[in-house]
């Protein structure tokens, strides 16, 4: 199995509160994985673990078979719901930033020809997310949808192996959200991206994803609810994407479904 990203027996605990337990996942290159689940089921924790922002209490994460360093790196791009762009930089400079970091370790700025080349690349990327007439706007001058487009362009210019989206469209109007769905689908195809997206919106998860993961607690102890963590209770590969109606027939559970097994009630 040629998994791009492998999670092996991941546990995340905060103190004695167990958030995630026994998470085993293989994510193949080119897939679009949606993660859904109730609030507090560890969706964002899982994303932070993959991102390297958080170190799992137990378990290993392999990217291309190599263990991941326990910090963020340019091989994993990210778009958060908010605060993903730098408010003090224009759209163009926000996008160039990633190139500058790689090519100018000390000054973190490019000059002359190198700068023009980077600017051209950034403009190309901004054009592909539809921001070609907002190159010199600051984020504060942009709408929420434009800011998310910018955040995506900024991440994609580093050509990350995996793009992580943490409720990226949660704060947007429904109309804008539909535009963004079309955009992310097009980018996913054009750039052959591997995407992991956390969302609250089940419809969005099934519309966009090629695979939907549901995180929830398998077991529940009413006396100590924090002692059992969540894991992937459903893992649904979707055969025909962009057709939400087809998702039901494609929904065969590959993982055992012994969810919600209440334990010990005296």
């Amino acid at each position, binding site marked *: 199995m040629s998994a791009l990203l492998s999670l092996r027996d991941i546990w995340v605990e905060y103190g004695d509160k167990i958030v995630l337990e026994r998470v085993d996942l293989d994510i193949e290159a080119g897939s679009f994985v949606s993660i859904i689940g109730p609030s507090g089921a560890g969706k964002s924790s899982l994303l932070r673990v993959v991102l390297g922002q958080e170190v799992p209490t137990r378990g290993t994460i392999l990217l291309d078979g190599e263990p991941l360093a326990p910090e*963020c790196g340019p091989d994993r791009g990210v778009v958060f719901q908010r605060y993903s*762009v730098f408010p003090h930089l224009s759209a163009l400079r926000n996008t160039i*930033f990633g190139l500058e970091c790689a090519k100018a370790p000390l000054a*973190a700025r490019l000059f002359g020809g190198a700068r023009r080349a980077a600017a051209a690349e950034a403009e190309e990327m901004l054009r592909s997310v539809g921001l070609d007439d907002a190159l010199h706007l*600051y984020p*504060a001058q942009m709408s929420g949808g434009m800011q998310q487009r910018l955040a995506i362009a900024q991440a994609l210019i580093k050509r990350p192996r995996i793009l992580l989206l943490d409720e990226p469209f949660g704060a947007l109007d429904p109309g804008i959200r539909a535009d963004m769905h079309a955009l992310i689908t097009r980018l996913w195809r054009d750039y052959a991206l591997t995407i992991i997206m956390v969302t609250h919106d089940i419809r969005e998860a099934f519309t966009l994803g090629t695979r939907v993961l549901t995180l929830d607690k398998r077991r529940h102890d009413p006396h100590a609810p924090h002692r059992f963590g969540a894991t992937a209770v459903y893992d649904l590969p979707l055969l025909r994407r962009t057709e939400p109606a087809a998702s039901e027939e494609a929904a065969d559970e590959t993982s055992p479904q012994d969810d919600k097994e209440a334990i010990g009630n005296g």
Partner: protein
Amino acid sequence: MRWVNRHARRGDRIFLGAVPILLLVLLYLFLAAQRHAANPMDKILPLPASMADAMAALLFQADQLTGQFVFWADTLASLQRLGIGLGIATLSALVVGLLLGVLPPVRATFGPLLTVVAVIPPIALLPILFIALGLGETAKVALIVIGVAPVMMRDIAAHVAALPREQIVKAQTLGASSWQIMIRVALPQAMPRLLHAMRLALGPAWVFLISAEAIASDVGLGYRIFLVRRYLSMDVIIPYVAWIAILAILMDGALTLASRRAFPWAHGAGH
């Protein structure tokens, strides 16, 4: 209409703001005239004419001993001390604030020390400064630096540490190192806050300047005020205080303007 909804128009606001100031000036003139009616030689509440006479001597006539124009020499000396002190404090606040704000190990190591230094009343250190650094310019500048720098450092460090975690993570996913995050993400966003901290530090900086000058100096605005106090020269003290107020307002305005010009993104650009 409720009072919370009554917004004055721009022209009205200037008028409204001017009224209390004018009333205070009128009150002063009334009281001064009253005292002068009773005693034409009164020194406690001088009339504008005598203030103008006293200041003209300081402004336009060279001092017979030193050959200097006293008012300008005082202003220059005070501004120089204030500028150097505030400059050093600002620069160190930026460097220390960035290091503490961005790098958790540095914060853990030096954060408590900074807190301890910040709670020491600077005036209590003035004797130590005079003993250690002598009575010259260094001690006065050092008092200003010690007085305002710790507060500014803590402010900048807290501001940088409060930058959204998402931004720092995003910068790392774009390949930024700690150094690059410091100079490209934290530094630019700390700058408007730094100018704001300077504005807030101006008040304490003047206090420490006047204190240092009052205790040991031979030139300066604070020195002059405390010197002529011996002769009850309210006709010099009042214009000097007004001049200090004008200088402080000008500096505050200049800093606000500089922040708006240099960092439009921090002031709701384009909205």
